[in-house]
Every structure is written in C-alpha cells, then in structure tokens.
C-alpha cells in the first residue's frame, strides 16, 4: 500500500517537473539537475544521520567514488546510461559497506572524524594513479541526448530529466525503507542502542546497512554530478562538498526526505539569488561579492534558532501536520561512547 502511494506521488511529481523543465531556459534546467544530484546525496545522508543516528561528514568521498565509476565506465565500457548509473551506486555501496563495518565500531565525533579523513584523503588517489584517473585534470564525461528526443533537444534538459528520474527512484525507495521494518529498527537503535539490542535487533548489521544504503545514494548523486559537470575532477570533491551535503541535510531537517530537497534548493539557489539582488541594488563588486556569504551564514543561524527541526520541521510546525520532528533530529548528539557489550553480541 505504502509502495503504491509513493509510486503514485512520484509519477505526479515527475510529470510536474518535466513540465517545469520545458518551461525554463537552459541554465534553469542545469540548476534543476544540480538540485537533483544534491538531493539524491543529501537524502542518503539524512537517512544515515536522522534515522540510523550515525554521523558522516565525509559523504563527498562516496560521491567521488560514484563520479569516477561513472566516468571510467563511460570512457572504457559502452554500457547503457542506466546501467552505468546503477553500477556507480553499487560500487559506492560496496565502499560504504567496507567503511560501515569500521564505522559500526565508532560513535559520534569519532565516527565523524573517520569519515572526514576519508573525504580528505580519497581524492588524492587521482594523482597517485594518474594514468587511470587523469590526475588533476580528471576525466571527461560525455552524455549524448538520446535520438528519440530529436537533435534540437537541449542537452541540459535531458540531464535535468535524468536527474529527476534518479532522484524520484531514490526517494521512492528510501521512503519505503523508512516505513519498513528496517526503518523502524534504525529509529530504535538511533534512540537507544542498548534497548534496541535488548529487543533483539542486530545493531552492527543495521548500522552497516544504513551506511550501504546511504553511500549508494551518494554514489548515484556523484555519478549524476559527473554527468552534469561533464567531468570528474578531484577539485570537485573537496571537504566543502561534504560539508555542503551535511548543511543541506541539517537545514532541511535531519531524517526528512522532503528536508533533503529543501536543503538542496537552498544550496543551489540562495547564492545566485542574493548576488542578483545585491548587484541590482548597485553595490560595488567588493561588497556584492561578500553579501551572499553573509546571508548564507545568517540563514543557517536563523533556521537553527527558529526551526531546530530544519525547514521541514518548521513547515510542519507552522502548518501543524503530524508529529513535530523538532527534537528528533538532534538525538544523535545524545549518544554515548560505545556500548561494547551489546556491540560484541551484535557482531557475533
């Protein structure tokens, strides 16, 4: 039943997005594609942090893996685009599984530190094996618009459609996982690991699974990013990218899929919008260039103060729908050092 409802919603949204993308110009299409890849990755992250209670501030590393997998496959194999995208998600998921096994032993800031290390270190393999990864120059990615759309079809609109498709599939799957037994188990162990273990949940396995799901999303987002940027270069996958993802998840509201979309919209649209306002007011370039940074900081502070549950939490509070999520997102902060006993029980 839930699956059907989500599918129906996704089909309606897909139709609306396609209409929107036809109405707007090429640059707006490009921005929509950007929103799509940020939203895919942020959705995975919001599930990891908000549902399973594990913090990653290095999710850019999984986007890196997805992007390079897609770039390498498009360069050397002649697979269908859908297969390349799926494979990128799978490769990132495998990497996520490996990290997840290590991560299941770490908690809170220690886990965050370990993922941070990954985000900083991983892109440097491109200069280690320049022959394969193309060094600082990275790899070029070319996507051809399929023939049935005609030769005049704008390439950025096709990228936006691809992004929508990937995002909607991701969101439907995540929404179902969220409502499934697994989703409920994640919430149980997020709220109290010991109680979850006592209720018979395999804590370590669930945590690794959350990492796998979340990094698969990041991998798919990374692959889309490579297609949209028409390249995969190490310069894209800086620490800033990882932190932007985290910001999107937190701004939108941790644990909320809709929140991931809100956060991505802020990432993509806020700075250019403020710049346009600033320049239309005739501010000098040295002032105008710095205003978006100030506004961005102010928005972060205001959202955190007024809506601790993020934008989605704020909307829920304002329009009074189901349970206010305000307190839930930060429950991961309340976690304590590893409960080693039940950990062992979980892995054995």
């Amino acid at each position, binding site marked *: 039943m839930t699956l059907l409802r989500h599918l129906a919603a996704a089909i309606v949204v897909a139709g609306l997005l396609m209409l929107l993308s036809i109405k707007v*110009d*090429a*640059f*707006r299409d*490009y921005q929509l594609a*950007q929103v799509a890849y940020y939203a895919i990755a942020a959705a995975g992250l919001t599930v990891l942090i908000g549902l399973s209670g594990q*913090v990653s*501030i290095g999710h850019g590393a999984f986007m890196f893996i997805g992007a390079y997998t897609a770039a390498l496959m498009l360069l050397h194999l002649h697979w269908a685009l859908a297969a390349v995208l799926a494979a990128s998600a799978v490769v990132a998921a495998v990497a996520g599984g490996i990290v997840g096994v290590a991560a299941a032993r770490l908690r*809170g*800031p220690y886990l*965050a530190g370990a993922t941070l290390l990954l985000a900083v270190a991983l892109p440097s393999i491109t200069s280690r094996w320049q022959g394969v990864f193309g*060094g*600082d*120059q*990275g790899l*070029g*990615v*070319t996507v051809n618009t399929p023939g049935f759309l005609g030769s005049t079809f704008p390439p*950025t609109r096709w990228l936006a459609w691809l992004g929508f498709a990937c995002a909607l599939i991701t969101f439907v799957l995540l929404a179902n996982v969220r409502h499934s037994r697994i989703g409920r188990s994640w919430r149980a162990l997020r709220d*109290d690991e*010991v109680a979850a273990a006592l209720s018979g949940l395999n804590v370590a396995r669930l945590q690794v699974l959350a990492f796998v799901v979340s990094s698969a999303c990041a991998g798919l987002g990374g692959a889309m990013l490579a297609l949209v*940027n*028409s*390249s995969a*270069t190490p*310069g*894209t996958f*800086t*620490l*800033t*990218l990882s*932190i*932007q993802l*985290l*910001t999107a998840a*937190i701004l939108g509201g941790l644990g909320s899929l809709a929140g991931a979309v809100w956060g991505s919209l802020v990432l993509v649209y806020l*700075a*250019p919008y*403020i*710049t346009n306002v600033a*320049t239309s007011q005739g501010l000098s*370039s*040295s002032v*105008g*260039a*710095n*205003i*978006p*940074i100030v506004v*961005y*900081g102010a928005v*972060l502070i205001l959202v955190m103060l007024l809506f601790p549950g993020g934008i989605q939490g704020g909307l829920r509070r304002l329009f009074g729908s189901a349970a206010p999520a305000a307190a839930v997102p*930060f429950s*991961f*902060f*309340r*976690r*304590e050092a590893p409960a080693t006993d039940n950990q062992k029980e979980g892995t054995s």
Partner: protein
Amino acid sequence: MNRKHRVPLAAAAGIAAAALAVAACSSSSSPSSTPPSSSGSALQASAPGITPTSILVGSHQPLTGPAAPGYSEIAPAANAYFQYVNAHGGVFGRKITYRYLDDGYNPTNTVSVVRQLVLQNNVYAIFNGLGTPTHLNVVNFLNSSKVPDVFVASGCDCWNDPSKYPETFGYQLDYIREGKILGSYVKQHFKGKKIGYFYQNDEFGQDGVKGLDYEVPASQVVAREAYNVLATNPAQEVGGLVAKMKAAGVQVVVSFSIPAFTALLRLTGLTLSYSPTLVVSDVGSDPITLSGLLNTFAKKSGSFGSSLIQGIITDGYLPSLGDASNSWITLFKTVHDTYIPKLPFDGNVLYGESVGYAFVQAMLKAGRNPTRQDLVNALNAGNFPQGASVAPYAYASGSHDGITGAYIAVIKNGVLVQQGDVLVTDVTATGAVTPYMTAQSAAPATGVPSP
C-alpha cells in the same frame, strides 16, 4: 540512561564550525558591465553574445577566498582596458561588456558560474578564467558546447591540447618553458654549485620542475622539497623543508611557489641564518605582493619586506613595471590612472591589462562579424601579433600555448631589472633555450591595436 547528555556540545560545536566553513566558502558573484551604446553600420548579431553594438564576454575569477589577494585585481584591470578601448571606438565599433563572476577559487562554484555565463547570459566567449583546479572543471563543458575559451589565467601546460580542447588557449608563459628558461640560467651561472628545488606539489610545481630538469644537470640537484599548498601549518611545513635544504648544503634554491610560500621560504631562511641564492618563478615573485606579505608575516612595516627580496632572481614575460620609459608601461599606467586609480599599479594589474589587449587583438583578427569559430580560427591561423608580451605567442593550429619566452630579471629596489636577452624555448626535453633578438614593437600611439 542519563549519561546521554555529554557529547552534544562538542558535536554541536563541530557542526556549527562546519556550517560556518561552508558559509565562508559559498559562492558569490559580481558582474561588471558597461552599458552598450549605439554606433556602427553593417554590423550584425553574428554569434551568441555579439550584437551590432556590443560583445559580451564572461569569466570566473577569485574575487573572494584564498586566491583573492592580488588576483582579484586582474579582472578589473582587464575591464579597465576594455573601457579604454570602448572609449576609443571599440572593436569594429562594438563595445566590450565584461561580466566576471566570483567563484571564490572553489571548483564547484566555477562550474555553476560558467554555466550561468554560457547558458543564461549567452556570453560570446569565456576569457581569462583564472586558476588551474578551477578551470579544469569547466574545460570539458566549454569545449563540448563549442564556446571559445581564450587566454586561461594559468600557466598549466594542460591548456595546450588542440585535439582534445580545440576551443581552449593558454596565455601566459607556461611553467615547463619557464622552468627551462630559469634552468638554463642556473646551469650557466651556478656551475658546480649545489642546487635545491622548492616547489608546490601540484601541476604548477611539477611542470616547473619538469622544465628545470630538462636543463639543470641532475648531479647538481641535491634536494627536491615539495610543499603542500593546503598545509594546516604552512610555516612549520616550510620550516622543515628549508632545514633539509640547509643540511644538504644547498647554495641555490629554485622555487616554484605562490607568493605566500616564497615569503615563508625567505623568512624561514632568515630565522635559520641561511641565505642561499633565490631563483623564483614569475607567479611567486611580484615585488609589491611579496614585500607586503613579508611585512605582514613578520609583523613589520616599512622597508623590512622590500629589503628581504633584494637580489631575488626571477623572470618576466611582460615589460618591467620599473621601466617607466617603456611605451607599454606608459599606456597601461594611463589606463590604470583613468579607470582603476584605487588599485595599486602592480604585476596583477599589468597582467590584466595585457591579457585584455591580447583579447582585443584576437577579436580584431576574428573579423567584422565573427562567429565563435572565427575567434578560434584567428588564433589557429598563427602569426598572432606580439602585443604587450616580450616574446612571441605560440598560437597555431597545432599549439594552443601562449607566450613562449621571458627575460631573466633581478629584483632591485622593488622592481624587476632585466638581465640579458629575452629567451624563448618550447616544451620538449631537447628544444634549446635561445635568445630572441627581435625588438618588441612599441605600443600603438592610440593605445588600441589596429585590425
């Protein structure tokens, strides 16, 4: 389960710091434009960004962020030269509008702002996009969209790849040629001395070292110390490397470094009472930038910085700012004083105006009603007039490198003093470094190149 409440503050503080970091790195942009005015007769809208009265070009520039000091002057300087040209009849009567957006030297932002310029603003070309890591992120897009990508502001040899990047052209002396030119000077003037390399561990430093190795005998090189530009403690990083060079008895340090690291290299030497001869690449040796940095780092003022850089050996591919009688310097000083008097007249401004001049030359060669391809063809045709550069350009269908040579210079009293002839070379291991004897033509009296 009351132990739950201990971790939160630390974690929350971490997240808040991260959020601030994002805020500081977030994108911003700043257009600059001159309103088009009407003039001209049989001129047509021959390409995107070209109307009968105007030419719209775009660029990504570090107006904020780590690379902004110094480099943020380049686009305003180029724009000042465009305004000068616009005031003197424009290009075939068209006025140039230069829209440069801030990418904060963050490659992710570069992608966005360049898409905006090409897809939304419909610029004719991307001109002088600044930075190696930043521009590498858009070079594929620009080439697949067939947008001319002219005079990239980076000496990476990567722009010279006409088969892969037919639309992309470099401008300044690339680091391999520069390494060879500095290397040949070192080989001749420091026979038998112990040489040490100090370089940035990326394409910039590695290309430079490649060029040096083509010239300097390997037996003389006793130390090769690479620094990481993102080091969390740069002073400590440089300190360790300099100590190693001192221990190895290095007498001549050849440095491919950005200004901040050149300054650290010099200061660390001072602390360790170690004063080898310094040979520094052009990008890391602008005297005004360097002496300012030295004063800032050492918390000194006045002549402290400028006295420390006295005698540094470097190279220059544009006329020296100290040569007030040079017609190019006079021209660019006039433009500077008219349009951007608040900026210092330093190496960055000279660079910006020179590359602006080159763009006007290229547009004139591209013809009266140019398509985008016409601009690329104009550069591929070769014989590109030399302009403000002291050595000829390499532009041809098989080469998209820019300036091919430079003169060796010594810093004396805050300006570059030329030593000997202009030297030219190529990027191969065997190509000789030879003097270029043709005298540079004077700047046109009107200040605007003729078609």
